[in-house]
């Protein structure tokens, strides 16, 4: 069996699959052999667990013994549509959107500097500086923000010494927003950097040769070309915020319950797996809609 042929067949199959008809039986076996492990992984571990979760969301739980009642019911989704759940969902989506916008605004000039202005050495240094915090424990970073934002913390201290009133950010939704923006920022910068770096200099030169000012070039040349990177980054910041429950737990206040916390409460405290599963379906639906929009904006063209 010739592995090279197998790969070729794969490539052709991917590019429309029309030319692979001539492949021999052996090549087909090679294709199947190569595709099997990732497909198996995808179907068994990934898709099936999602399907199980969605099926679970249609069950209910015996409120007393916490055993699962396997009769199909829509009661979990009814429950989500009522009471505080809509406001929890709304708060989560709003927060995720804010984090995404703020990270995009902060990341753009930084990524631009890295991609187009910095020397190669500086670029490498900046990239390492961006990626370095990702190696630190996520919990340690959150606790660092707790100590920065809490009463008497670093922020409070600085404000006091500058003669300013205390910002009083500890254990508020503002603290949650700041922490999220910090933690997910690298996930915005890196794809944006990739997109900006790929813009050919000739296009920018052409733009200015034709008399466009830098603002015009930015708006009509750079931004449209960077959009796929921006959208790709926003998928990270948006979905990561949507699913997180540790940050609000640790830095949030009494009004910081997000979807993740509601899932956690129902699962761990309440022992209500079906309701937790139904709640988990909410971010999935939101992300599917988000990804469809992202696809229309061309976020995946560059992949």
């Amino acid at each position, binding site marked *: 069996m010739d592995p090279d042929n197998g790969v070729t067949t794969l490539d052709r199959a991917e590019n429309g699959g029309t030319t692979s008809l001539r492949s021999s039986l052996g090549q087909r076996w090679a294709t199947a052999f190569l595709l099997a492990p990732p497909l198996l992984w995808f179907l068994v571990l990934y898709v099936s667990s999602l399907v*199980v979760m969605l099926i679970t969301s249609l069950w209910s739980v015996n409120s007393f013994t*916490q055993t699962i009642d396997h009769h199909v019911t829509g009661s979990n989704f009814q429950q989500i549509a009522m009471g505080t759940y809509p406001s929890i969902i709304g708060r989560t989506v709003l927060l995720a959107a804010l984090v995404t916008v703020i990270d995009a605004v902060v990341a753009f000039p930084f990524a631009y500097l890295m991609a187009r202005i910095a020397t190669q050495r500086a670029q490498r240094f900046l990239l390492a500086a961006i990626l370095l915090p990702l190696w630190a424990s996520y919990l340690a970073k959150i606790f660092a923000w707790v100590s920065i934002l*809490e009463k008497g913390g670093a922020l409070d201290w600085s404000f006091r010494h500058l003669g300013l009133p205390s910002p009083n950010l*500890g*254990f508020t939704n503002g603290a949650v927003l700041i922490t999220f923006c910090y933690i997910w920022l690298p996930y915005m910068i890196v794809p944006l950097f990739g997109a900006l770096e790929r813009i050919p200099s000739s296009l920018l030169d052409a733009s200015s040769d034709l008399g466009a000012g830098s603002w015009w070039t930015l708006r009509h040349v750079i931004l449209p070309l960077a959009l796929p990177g921006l959208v790709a980054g926003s998928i990270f910041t948006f979905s990561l915020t949507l699913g997180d429950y540790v940050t609000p737990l640790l830095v*949030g206040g009494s009004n910081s319950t997000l979807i993740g916390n509601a899932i956690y409460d129902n699962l761990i405290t309440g022992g209500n797996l079906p309701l937790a599963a139904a709640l988990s379906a909410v971010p999935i639906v939101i992300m599917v809609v988000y990804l469809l929009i992202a696809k229309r904006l061309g976020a995946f063209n560059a992949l």
Partner: protein
Amino acid sequence: MFRTTHRHGPRRAAIALVALSTMSLGMTLVGSDAGASGSLTPPTQGMKPQTSIGKGEGQLKLIAWEGYAQPQWVKPFESATGCQVSTKYAGSSGEMVSLMANGGGGQYDLVSASGDADLRLIYGGDVKPVNMKLIPSWKELRPFLQSPDFNTINGVHYGVSLQFGPNDLLYSTKTFKTAPTSWAVIYSKKYAGKITIPDNPIQIADAALYLETDKPSLGITDPYELTQTQFTAAVNLLKAQKPLIKKYWDLASQEINLFATGTTVVGAAWPYQTSQLKADHIAVDDTIPSQGATGWADSWLLAANAPDPNCAYDWMKWITTPQVQAEQAVSYGETPDNSLACPLMNRISAGSCVALHANEPDAYFNSIKFWKTPLSTCDNGKNDCIPYSEWTNAWTQITG
């Protein structure tokens, strides 16, 4: 001194993090069909407990709160009995119940359940009767903890009481020159933004306990047995309290931090927080207000299908002895059930007996209403009480 950082559950984010991330596909698929609820007779009530302790099986599998199986008393147990202990730590009462319901079919021997989980395990058929004659130190336990209604039904024991503690009122002595005498302070606008209470549905009972004397017309007699009207009143009190809350704490360490930085000045807590804060010279103290307090009381319950029953009995014998009771109380920062533990505690850590209320008169213990699972069946024989699942739903509605 008292080393552990945090207690039950919803409160234990870091541990729960691991729990959540390792939650397996298997757990999703398995739905045990154990026991019907609502019936007044525990399904295992008829099972005859063993009458003697045979040779140990060589192993013992526990579900426990973190800190409940420390090498300090596990190692000597292992060498004395030959039972090798393996422990699965649970993050919350709910997790304990689901571990027992889904894995109780022979995987575990004992669970260190709290009062809010006990009845769910007993009526769920997950635990079985225990013969107290085989546990000598049982007679040394404080009388009210020998057959408490959270682990003993119709005179049948499903486990042995372990340790307990009150959910008391923690306050800053800078703000309060004298100890507050009423829980009203945590519902008062005067301390808006400087109040913290635990993030736990059972907190509804604390509100009910307050209403018991504040609104006698509601006729609350037991904070865990609430009719719809009483329940709604407690929930409304907590909803009105929400804008005053700085944070619903999940970890004891969070509350310690909130008081250490002066972010909050009053809140519901455990003696553990007080002792930690005082050790750091923070100006705080705790008290049990005139209305009394809720409290937790843990028991080791015997799994219905325990694979190692002899080792399980050996463990219950061991864990209730005065010395081990004293060790656990000091290590964890809670009150031992064994009445002989006090002098031994002072030997481990001077002053710990008084600090952890191990020598208080009965009046102190009577002022604590211990956690028990809210059921739909009330003592009045009617079926109109609000069950625990409604409590968790209501809690989400309050804090959401």
